[in-house]
């Protein structure tokens, strides 16, 4: 088991190397003058030259790369033009906001999609089945920012149930003492019930938006996978042995059906991390997505680079986790026969 873990981690290394190289190329091998990008649109010629020397952009490419990797190793992602702060610091501060939102969205989607898919597969051609198919096909066509806007219009403007989409917490409340950065958890730890409810209220709509977005591919894959497994030979054997339907569905069918679903999670995470950016813009959520978008508007280049790099590293780590999870479920991967 440990060997499998170590092997998986080693496989992640080339991915990380690839990520570093690509981000390097994207930001240093730009058409035009990279220094001008980093200096910003309002920079003078002297400022541009200063940046050029500071970032080592006058040196040959391979030296630049070493310089770049060295910076990364020290955790130096450059500075933001607009705020003057170090990019690494900003990202660290804003990451919990995005993480809280994405995780909640994922939980919401899995909580609905997986049971829906299973029910649809075990009751073919029923109402649930049709519902599942419609949701899968339609849900995959909905632009995530559109869903968010519709939800705001219906639940905030028309019905007044949801609070104004102005960020993580209403102005009247102050954030709970920082432990994890997750407001939900921190407020519970600090015993601030009101803050908890207020945070939750702000989280509902954006998390729901992300949840709806991730729902469709997960439901579709769960349904398809369950259908395939329920038609398989070993489920036939289980039925022929007289096993109770619940045992057949849960112990025999479900665990096997989950394997392709776990693999799909990798792709779902890829979508989610991208959708995160759009949802943060719609709901004015102070996470790293909106950080990147603001930087884009201001042509502030270093934050964008830091953002892409951070997201990629997180994604590699997430994929590693998924691989390990797959190995836990599937002994064929664990035991290298």
């Amino acid at each position, binding site marked *: 088991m440990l060997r499998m873990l170590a092997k998986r981690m*080693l496989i992640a290394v080339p991915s990380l190397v690839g990520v570093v190289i690509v981000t390097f190329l994207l930001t240093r091998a730009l058409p035009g003058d990279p220094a001008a990008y980093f200096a910003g649109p309002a920079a003078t010629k002297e400022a541009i030259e200063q940046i050029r020397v500071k970032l080592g952009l006058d040196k040959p490419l391979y030296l630049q790369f070493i310089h770049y990797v060295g910076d990364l190793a020290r955790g130096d992602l450059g500075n933001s033009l607009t705020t003057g702060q170090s990019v690494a610091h900003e990202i660290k501060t804003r990451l919990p906001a995005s993480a809280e939102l994405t995780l909640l969205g994922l939980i919401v989607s899995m909580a609905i999609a997986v049971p829906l898919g299973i029910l649809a597969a075990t009751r073919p051609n029923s109402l649930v089945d049709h519902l599942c198919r419609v949701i899968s096909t339609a849900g995959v066509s909905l632009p995530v920012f559109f869903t968010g806007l519709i939800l705001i219009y219906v639940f905030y403007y028309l019905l007044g149930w949801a609070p104004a989409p102005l960020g993580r917490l209403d102005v009247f409340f102050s954030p709970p003492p920082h432990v994890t950065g997750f407001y939900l958890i921190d407020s519970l730890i600090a015993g601030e019930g009101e803050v908890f409810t207020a945070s939750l209220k702000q989280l509902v709509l954006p998390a729901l938006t992300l949840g709806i977005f991730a729902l469709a591919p997960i439901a579709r894959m769960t349904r398809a996978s369950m259908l395939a497994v329920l038609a398989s030979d070993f489920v*036939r054997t289980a039925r*022929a*042995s*007289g096993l109770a339907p619940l045992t057949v569905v849960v*112990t025999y069918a479900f665990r096997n059906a989950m394997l392709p679903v776990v693999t799909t999670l990798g792709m779902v995470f890829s979508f989610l991390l991208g959708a995160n950016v759009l949802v943060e813009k719609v709901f004015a959520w102070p996470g790293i997505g909106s950080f990147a978008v603001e930087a884009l508007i201001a042509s502030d280049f270093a934050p964008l680079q830091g953002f892409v790099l951070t997201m990629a590293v997180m994604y590699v780590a997430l994929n590693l986790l998924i691989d390990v999870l797959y190995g836990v479920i599937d002994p064929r991967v664990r*035991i290298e026969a």
Partner: protein
Amino acid sequence: MGCATSSIRNGEPEFGVVSETVPLLEVADLTVEFSTRRGVVRAVEHVDVRVAKGETVGIVGESGSGKSVTSYAVMRILDRAGRIAQGAVRFTGLDVRAASENEMRDLRGREMSMIFQNPRAALNPIRKIGRQIEDVLEQHSQADSAALTDRAIEMLDQVRIARPRERYHAYPFELSGGMCQRVVIALALACRPQLLIADEPTTGLDVTTQKTVMDLIVELTRQRGMSTILITHDLGLAATYCDRVVVMEKGRVVESAPSRDIFTAPAHPYTRKLMRATPRPGVSLGDLLLEDELELRIPQRQTRSAPCPQGESAAPSHINDGAPLLVVEKLVKEYARKRTGGPLAKIFARQPTPEPDTFRAVDGISFTVARGESVGLVGESGCGKSTTSTMVMRLIDKSDGVIMFDGEDIGAIPAKSFAKLPLRKRIQMVFQDPTDSLNPRFTAARAIADPILRLGGTRGRDVRARCEALARQVGLPLDLLDRFPHQLSGGQKARVGIARAIALNPDLVVLDEPTAALDVSVQAVVLNLLQELKETLGMSYLFVSHDLNVVRLLCDRVIVMRAGRIVEQGPTAQILVSPQAQYTRDLLAAVPHPTFA
């Protein structure tokens, strides 16, 4: 069993049958329907089957006969789209059709159980086999929770799995096909049911494994006084292991009688046809066909050859005593053994792997094929016969040794370049799986025309004319030439494959189990066709097969292989009647042969 003298013919009980007990299983006038996109389809109609206590009944039929559907109906595990439309199924007097799902679940596994084809797929791949047996025991409350594990291990022991305590923790992918089938049998017998339904339990297994599995089933069921239903397409198997046989065709029972009667004096024409078509010792190729097989008649055949006297194989014809056509000397094929875990595992491995770095699929074999001769290459799976034939075909490269064809060293020519040489025309192949070997997007005509277009040098209309001539030669109706493979039957696809192979008049044709995927009646026709073509076109055959009976009919000489080496070779009559090697003797003994005292 009731009185052995009376029998049931044509589904009608004759008066005078007295049975001491109510039969264990009684299927009466069973009709099963499936609702498909094209309407309602009747899979079986008016089927009667009776199984008494302790009796073994075989249900025999070709594909589409409905034999599996009948058993699924008995267990009531039909697909959602299927239902019992008519008739009754009574198990120990209990009405299966009217029983509730709960009652059926109690019956399944505890009173009647089933084992299926393809044993590895029949087991949950991510659950330990011991736990799977426990699940069945637990479901039917066969032991209290403390004793479950012990009972499971006991079952594994009873099905002759070595080191059952260790193997309890194994996963299906760690076991061989034969062992998986034993586990499936353990699952089926764990709760000591009264009836075992075995649906093609040995199809896909090697003939020696087949024998062990069947013997095990017979032993365990006899021990417990169980009844068995054996569903199979193999008449020989049914004859060897069953007391009574029910023959089904296209969803109906055509005959039902004790084994001996079926085999010595079959009543129904279909049974007779099946009997005749089954390859067995003591007959010739021509005997496999009936006189009145109009639609499948071989065009060239004017008169049927007289049946050969007992003990002789097909008479050798056109054998040229000149230089041999194919000479294979000390042929070797090595594969690098796959390192588990890739190159990184070497870093993490605690001890060095004990196995050698290479695996020899073919380990220095030598044989010849003369002109006009038909040589059989037999062995079980993994013996290297397919690898040998693929090397002779020049589809893969050898590791060492010599392959001489008509005096030329073709072994030295790399496989990649062989396709463009004129020599390519002279060695062709007929494949095992007719579906897989035809491009799904090509019509039959286009598939047959492929070698002609590439190597034949003919163009335009002539190609079409040649295709039609070939189709006629193999007995393929011309109007089927423009069909796609999925619109053709198995036998028709096989003919297309044969037409393609002979399109360029090759000297040597390698046939890799060409009839393994075909029904036995279709097989009889195709084998006769192959013999005819060989004689008409003067070809040599290298016939790769695991089926000794088929080889006996078609081949002049036989080569027996095992683990990459030749065990013995010689004339068919000699090898198959009085083999020298123990392995050959084992192989022959494992082929099911009914004995009627």
